[in-house]
């Protein structure tokens, strides 16, 4: 019945009679728009308060660890690269290589979360977290808001990294089992797109939070 949609050569190789490669990608792009708008709401809040508390944002931003932030940026960018290489390898029917790159992507994602853990841990040890006594009693309104935004934005992004990790691991299993292969890779491609989005959002978060000082 899917015959009437202008079909893609991939569809013929799929086990699913309703396979629609282009439809899968189109649908996933709509999902990515949703994600962009979700973070758009947060960025809106950021710009609103940045206008209001310019000074305080500079001051508070200077307490963030630029070294760790930059390191994480490199980690994520590299993981995007290995993601692409994994897909390309699969398309060239090199399953082992594809799994290797996919595994590397997963490791980079884990590394990102480990760095995040130490960063957040340091902030907590200084009492710089939402609702903390120290933050609310000895810092200005602008600093409180900055740290509120910092934790909400990096936290929301972190949740996306964790979800990405789960999706990547799932893809790893499916490539391993041969459910995703050189003729039917829409899932892997879509997870890759998602992973690039997570990367892209971080590329905006990094300067806004770490380099604002």
């Amino acid at each position, binding site marked *: 019945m899917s015959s009437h949609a202008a079909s893609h050569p991939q569809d013929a190789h799929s086990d699913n009679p309703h396979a629609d490669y282009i*439809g899968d990608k189109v649908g996933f792009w709509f999902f990515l*728009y*949703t994600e962009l*708008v979700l973070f758009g709401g947060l960025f809106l*809040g950021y710009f609103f308060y940045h206008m209001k508390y310019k000074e305080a944002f500079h001051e508070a931003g200077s307490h963030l660890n630029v070294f760790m932030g930059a390191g994480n940026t490199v980690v994520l960018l590299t993981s995007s690269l290995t993601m692409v290489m994994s897909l390309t390898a699969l398309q060239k029917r090199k399953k082992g290589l594809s799994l290797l790159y996919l595994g590397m992507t997963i490791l980079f994602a884990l590394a990102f979360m480990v760095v995040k853990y130490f960063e957040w841990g340091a902030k907590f040890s200084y009492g710089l977290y*939402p609702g903390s006594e120290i933050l*609310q009693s000895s810092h200005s*309104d602008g600093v*409180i808001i900055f740290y509120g935004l910092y934790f909400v934005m990096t936290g929301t992004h972190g949740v996306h990294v964790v979800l990405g990790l789960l999706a990547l691991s799932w893809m790893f299993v499916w490539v391993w089992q041969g459910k995703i292969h050189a003729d039917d890779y829409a899932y892997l491609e879509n997870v890759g797109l998602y992973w690039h989005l997570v990367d892209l959002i971080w590329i905006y978060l990094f300067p806004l939070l770490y380099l604002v000082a």
Partner: protein
Amino acid sequence: MGAGAKAFYHDDAVVFAGMFQAVKKAGKNSSVFRAIAWVLSWILSTDHKRVGILYFVAMFSFFSVAVSLGIMMRLELFQSGQQFFEPKTYNAMFTLHGVIMTFLFIVPGIPAIFGNFLLPLQLGAADVSMPRLNLASWYMYIIGAIMAVVSLFSNGGAPDGGWTFYAPYSIQTQTNVSLALVAAFTLGLSSIFTGMNFLTTIHRLKAPGMGWFDMPLFVWSLYATAWIQVLATPVVGITLLLTVMERTLQIGIFNPSLGGDPVLYQHMFWIYSHPVVYVMILPAMGVISDVLPVFARRHIFGYKAIAYSTMAIAGSGYFVWAHHMFTSGISDVARLVFSFITFLVAIPTAIKIFNWLATLYRGSIQIDPPMLWALTFLFTFSIGGLTGLALGAVVTDIHLHDTYYVVGHFHYVMFGGGGVGMFAALHHWFPKITGRMYNFFHAKVSWFFFFVGFNMLYFPMLILGVMGMPRRYHDYLPQYDFLNSVATIGSWIMVFGILYMFANLLKGLLSGEKAGSNPWNAKTMEWETQSPPVLHNFEKQPKMVHGPYDYEGEWVK
């Protein structure tokens, strides 16, 4: 259900097929297992028609709860002074009425029920693009709905403060607002996934020969709606989550004592929630565009104008949000600009109204029940739209803001538009969905009670608002007694009409005559297959051979 509906009970297209088959096997000698298998054949089915009916059952269950709350509120307001309920109880009641009616009923509304059922049929497709995701959306809806219900009875008690959850009250109140917010977030997710699914379906699964401008206008309305669902819902999603985090972690963003700005909440809330009123109303407009030509036997007037204006309404809806905030302390310049843009939105709406009227002109009009409801839409929705102009103008809004006028306007638009559109759809597609026909006479009598009661209920609210009666109070001054009593009596008549209508439809479902595949002699594609349609809808792939509104012989393109 008789044999005619048997085609409907295809037990294919279920998820967890192995488990389902096992239960079904056990059902051979056990009536309990037979019943379980029957339930599973519904709640595990990815068939878009079943998903649509699942939504119907769930949504109208919640609808009846919210109607009961509304009736109770009207009882309290029958006369000045306290009648039955404490002020606190009343606050919880209007919050619940609002939350259920908006988030559980009118937002998912027509797309979730009729969109699911009809979109693939009208496109000539076997199902939506992502049938599993479609079923998952229903489960997300149910989970969200359950959370909303649980929030009433768990720690802190029923949420108060209204369905808009304005900060800073929503971050201070001790009632169970957090859970209600998470519930609304989950419902939003469900709505986003439905939108994604519909967009992909419309892009990918049009029948051979069907171009964009050969689609029925109902499909156009779903298309515009789906874009709003995908691009606006996440903003309110993150806003609601921020409010939850504000309550639990004190991040400060909406909390003035920590340097935050509660007006930002209003901005972020309405950036979504104004576009979403079009999620509530556009599909109803699509229904009207499909029903009027059938019963006027005329080609729809200005097909392209209606299609474009549908997209224009969806697009311009993003730029008017601050008209909800004229009294919130935003600048005069902002008020003027937003007031002006708000008036611009009236243009595409008016285009539609005039096109519908022109469709009727010189038609051979047959007042069957669907037509009766569609014409009612034109009447009640026009009142709703025109009363909105007074709220869009800054000067009059200052006087009318937070009065009963707003409540009257809102119900004329939402109930008189979205709700009446849904009743029109229900009467129009009932024979397609059930394979049977209801009684016309009783349908018309029930309509009469609804129509009289509806206007008795909501029109006095407009007058009361102009007189200065504030909304959301559980009591009022004695000079408002008379009109309030009229409204309360109207609510009884209207609810009687609704019950009557459903009784008639239920009787039609159980013992109505066989409807046949095309009782209205309509031209859109869903009428080309049997009623109810088989699994995967069409015996063989239908092709586009005439336009969707081709009532006057030639294919008008």
